[in-house]
């Protein structure tokens, strides 16, 4: 009997290796006018919303450009092919995703969406020559000796100081309480926020309270915090799904101060989940709110909505990564298969920002203050206030 086991196993293993071989020999290269851009991030499970807005932004933009006949980089015209990989928010899978991108000869990858994934893919990306654009904030990813990661958005340690400063000066905020999910990303963001608040001389009355991310009822979590009656309640790194529940619980418990967060939120989700209780909620917006967005951005939103049925405000920010990649390649066509060229180009790159009304706005790389090197996309820091189903721009700032 045991013999059968051994030989059937060997046979199966042989079969699998034969299959993988066959898979490998299938034509991987298509016509040379396709430029593959990768995505490695989470598009399933509870955090699916993060990666989904990335993927859909990329796919909408790519389809739009391809429909116009492709993008011209140097003297060659390319169709953009978005290669996606769902890492299921699992760093082990994220590594496999990055390996797959390397295998496909891809040099530019958007994602991962979370800290652990972004850290885990670093050895692969640096070895294989891949520039990747995480939506994770740890400074170590972007500070030397790390060299291949480019932060795709505004980090909370960059946005928090300007938000708290604004609230201190304009709304008379003196005391702050923090609450966040008991997970790596939110806790890191809370710690960054606490530092920023203390630096401004604000009185931090609660900086340890956490909830489990799958909490459905936040009243017990918020009860002791609301009792402290802070002027400002910061929901550090709050997931879009949890924000309306937290706001609703806090307001129903009689909280009268200001509620804010430093991550992007979704107006529809807030409206459905908290209704008018969410009015006045301050968040960092997608980087192209109605007040400042251009016709191009409006058309993008239109196309996105047609393609996927419903728009996600987070895509206001996430539209930028692919735009930056392609525009930087246009500025330096040699970078198309040399990330070293790309890194050089990042230092000097500047191009008009198609998504903003302000025609003097440019796309360029920033991050010198926070990371000591230009490893961040410059996107406008838009601070929003929610009102009756829509975000209204509170103020706009620039990072760096």
């Amino acid at each position: 009997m045991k013999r059968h086991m051994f030989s059937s196993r060997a046979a199966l293993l042989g079969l699998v290796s034969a299959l993988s071989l066959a898979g490998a020999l299938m034509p991987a290269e298509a016509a040379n006018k396709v430029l593959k851009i990768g995505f490695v991030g989470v598009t399933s499970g509870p955090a699916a919303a993060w990666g989904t807005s990335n993927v859909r932004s990329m796919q909408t933009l790519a389809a739009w450009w391809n429909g116009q006949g492709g993008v011209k980089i140097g003297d060659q015209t390319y169709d953009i092919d978005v290669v996606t990989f769902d890492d299921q928010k699992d760093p082990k899978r994220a590594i496999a995703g990055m390996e797959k991108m390397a295998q496909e000869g891809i040099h530019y990858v958007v994602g991962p969406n979370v800290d652990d994934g972004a850290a885990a893919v670093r050895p692969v990306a640096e070895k294989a020559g891949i520039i990747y654009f995480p939506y994770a904030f740890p400074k170590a990813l972007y500070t030397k000796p790390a060299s291949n990661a480019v932060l795709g958005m505004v980090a909370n340690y960059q946005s928090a100081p300007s938000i708290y400063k604004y609230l201190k000066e304009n709304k008379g905020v003196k005391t702050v309480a923090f609450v966040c999910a008991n997970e790596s990303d939110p806790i890191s963001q809370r710690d960054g926020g606490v530092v920023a608040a203390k630096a401004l001389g604000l009185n931090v009355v609660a900086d340890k309270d956490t909830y489990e991310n799958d909490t459905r009822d936040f009243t017990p979590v918020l009860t002791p915090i609301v009792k402290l009656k802070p002027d400002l309640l910061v929901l550090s790194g709050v997931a879009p799904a949890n924000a309306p529940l937290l706001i609703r619980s806090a307001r129903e418990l009689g909280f009268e101060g200001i509620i804010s967060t430093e991550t992007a939120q979704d107006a529809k989700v807030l409206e459905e989940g908290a209704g008018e209780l969410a009015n006045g909620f301050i968040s960092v917006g997608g980087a192209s709110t109605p007040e400042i967005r251009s016709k191009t951005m409006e058309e993008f939103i239109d196309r996105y909505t047609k393609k996927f049925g419903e728009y996600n405000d987070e895509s206001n920010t996430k539209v930028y990564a692919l735009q930056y990649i392609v525009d930087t390649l246009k500025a330096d066509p040699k970078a198309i298969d040399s990330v070293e060229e790309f890194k050089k180009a990042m230092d000097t790159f500047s191009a008009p920002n198609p998504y903003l009304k302000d025609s003097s706005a440019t796309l360029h790389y920033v991050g010198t203050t926070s990371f000591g090197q230009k490893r961040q996309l410059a996107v406008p820091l838009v601070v929003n206030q929610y009102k009756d189903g829509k975000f209204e721009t509170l103020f706009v700032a620039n990072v760096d």
Partner: protein
Amino acid sequence: MEQVVANGLYLGAQYALIALGLTLIFALMNVLNFAHGQMYVLGGFVTYEIYGQLRWPFVVALFASAITLAVLGGLIERLLFRTVIRRSVREESTMLLAAGIAYFLDAVILLLFGEKQRGVPKIVPGVLRAGDIIMPYDRIVVGGLAVLFIVGFILMMQYTRPGRAMRALAQDRIAAQLMGVPVEFYSLLGFALGAMLAGLVGGLLVTITGVNSGIGGPISLKAFLMVMIGGAGVVGGAIAGGFILGMLESVGLTVLHAYGDITYLVIFAALLIFLAIRPNGLMGKPWG
């Protein structure tokens, strides 16, 4: 402190209702239904569509959630569990099946309803403020309904013919069969009832906490916790477990909030110690 107790009672009522369905299925078929949380989510989405989108009355939506899940539960038992239980050499195989169904429902829900958090209009506006207690009216209504459903369920199990048959089944399947109880029919009914309870509580809670496609797994995990505390396979245990966990969370988060991220660690540690002393929970039926 009154507020903390009120929070705990409200949480407990909804938890108990979640745990009931899980424990019923376990009692009748020795199946740990991994897909319980997903059934809850599905119930939530049915109510979301009917009450939140179509704007039909909430009661209709709740009814639809219950019926949908009852039918689904019945189908799952008839087509899947019955076959696997018959063919498999080890009882644990049903766990894989349940986990597979959980993933499958996750996928279906994600495809049908998308990845976003959804919510519906409040069923009752306003907030009750009585002394130190602050409790929104809709929470009071939902908590009350949850208690009502629990009482209804207990009465059904105690005094109706199907209830008695299912209790007989839970006590001793073979004996019940020998006594002429149509075991297969009541397994089907029990599974449908368990799924229905999940759908019902999902529909009920969508008015307070909304629903999103990713929370099925965590809900199941929470339900497992309650069942462990109270004891698996016993109605009283599920209810006790639900209320105890609700109270632990509420009190823990208040008392321990100065110490940071440890409330759940403390709850889990307490659970391990408790189970070391009482391996079958408060009143669970022994296994094996």
